[in-house]
């Protein structure tokens, strides 16, 4: 019969009890080592792909990798670089991507069930092909996922053309796009055709009327002054404020009578000091109103 001395018994007991703990520790160490090695490999790959893309932007460049995961990584890096480049380097990098078949990847990603993948496809396609990519990417302004809609709108801002303005305005009208994101996109496109914005100012959607009115001012579309003036009586306060600010930006002497009437009308008291102050500022910008004709405000901002 096996007999154990006390010291042996203690040792065996400790080993048996500590076994699971030691095993867990070993597994943890292996997991940490594996994840570190994976991170090192990912970092090395990233640097390799980045150098490849930088070379491509200089007009040279190796063939693109064939592995799907690697191509996704290259696409993401390329999007980042293209967003920071203009001119010849941009064109050369876009040409390299097209040469190595990334248009096919982007088209495939556009139809993916993954929102991130659809966004990746749309952004890459727009950056590679600009206006030619809009028929395939504009429908994504109505994508189920907000992030896709917003991401596409942002990229349309620097890769899109005037063709994108109406779809972006429509997305704001349907509440598919945050007005601020849609407006940024429109301002970056810098449209010279005022018709879509004029239409936006007639919309039933207050956010769209506000965006359209504000954009007209920032884009200095003097031909749209009259439609903006009609918004001085808009039922929505934010639209009225946008209209006043735009008339200020346009410094339109023709709008003075309307602004002065707004300043003196009975319901201006209900409109708040901010709006009155803006009207004053707009009138001053027009440059012909003596300051003594302006309303004064007390410390609370109320009209005196």
């Amino acid at each position: 019969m096996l007999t154990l001395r006390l010291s042996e018994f203690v040792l065996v007991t400790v080993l048996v009890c500590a076994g699971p703990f030691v095993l867990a520790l070993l597994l943890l160490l292996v997991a940490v080592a594996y994840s570190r090695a994976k991170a090192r490999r990912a970092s090395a790959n990233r640097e390799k792909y980045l150098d490849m893309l930088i070379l491509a932007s200089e007009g040279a460049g190796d063939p693109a990798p064939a592995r799907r995961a690697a191509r996704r990584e290259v696409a993401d890096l390329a999007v980042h670089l293209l967003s920071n480049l203009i001119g010849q380097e941009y064109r050369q990098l876009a040409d390299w991507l097209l040469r190595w078949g990334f248009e096919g990847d982007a088209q495939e990603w556009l139809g993916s069930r993954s929102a991130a993948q659809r966004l990746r496809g749309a952004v890459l396609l727009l950056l590679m092909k600009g206006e030619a990519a809009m028929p395939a990417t504009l429908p994504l302004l109505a994508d189920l996922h907000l992030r896709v809609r917003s991401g596409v709108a942002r990229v349309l801002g620097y890769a899109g053309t005037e063709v994108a303005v109406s779809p972006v305005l429509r997305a704001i009208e349907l509440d598919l796009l945050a007005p601020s994101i849609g407006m940024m996109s429109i301002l970056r496109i810098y449209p010279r055709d005022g018709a879509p914005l004029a239409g936006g100012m007639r919309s039933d959607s207050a956010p769209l009327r506000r965006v359209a009115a504000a954009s007209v001012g920032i884009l200095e579309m003097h031909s749209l002054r009259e439609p903006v003036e009609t918004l001085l009586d808009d039922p929505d306060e934010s639209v009225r404020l946008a209209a006043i600010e735009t008339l200020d930006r346009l410094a339109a002497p023709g709008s003075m009578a309307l602004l002065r009437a707004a300043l003196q009308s009975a319901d201006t008291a209900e409109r708040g000091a901010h709006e009155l102050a803006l009207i004053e500022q707009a009138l001053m910008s027009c440059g012909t109103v003596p300051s003594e004709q302006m309303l004064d405000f007390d410390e609370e901002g109320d009209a005196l």
Partner: protein
Amino acid sequence: MGNTLTRIAVIEDDADLNRLLCRRLSRADYEVHSAADGVAGLALMKEFPPAIAVIDWMMPKMSGIELIQRVRQDPELSGIKILMLTARSQEGDRIRARNSGADDYLVKPFAATDLLASLQALEQQI
């Protein structure tokens, strides 16, 4: 080439853009050192004082504006020519950059030719 020995510090937190800038400038025969934030950038400039620093505006730990102000206050660094890089393109931003002590200002995205032209113009002021 006249610019072979010109030392440039690139201080940009976007790792990809930092690498792109360093490569472009190295290819243009500049001696390039880089850092990824304002604090490291200040230390880098003290260790290897550059003729020109290319500094991003929005950075962690210390913004580009604050970094430029520190450089201008430091007697040993105050002569460095500074090109500020930023995505901020409003007129007020340009004025703020100039007031902080930047010698020139380049808005992202930019072409490499614009970057090199700005650097050459700064070199001529040294």
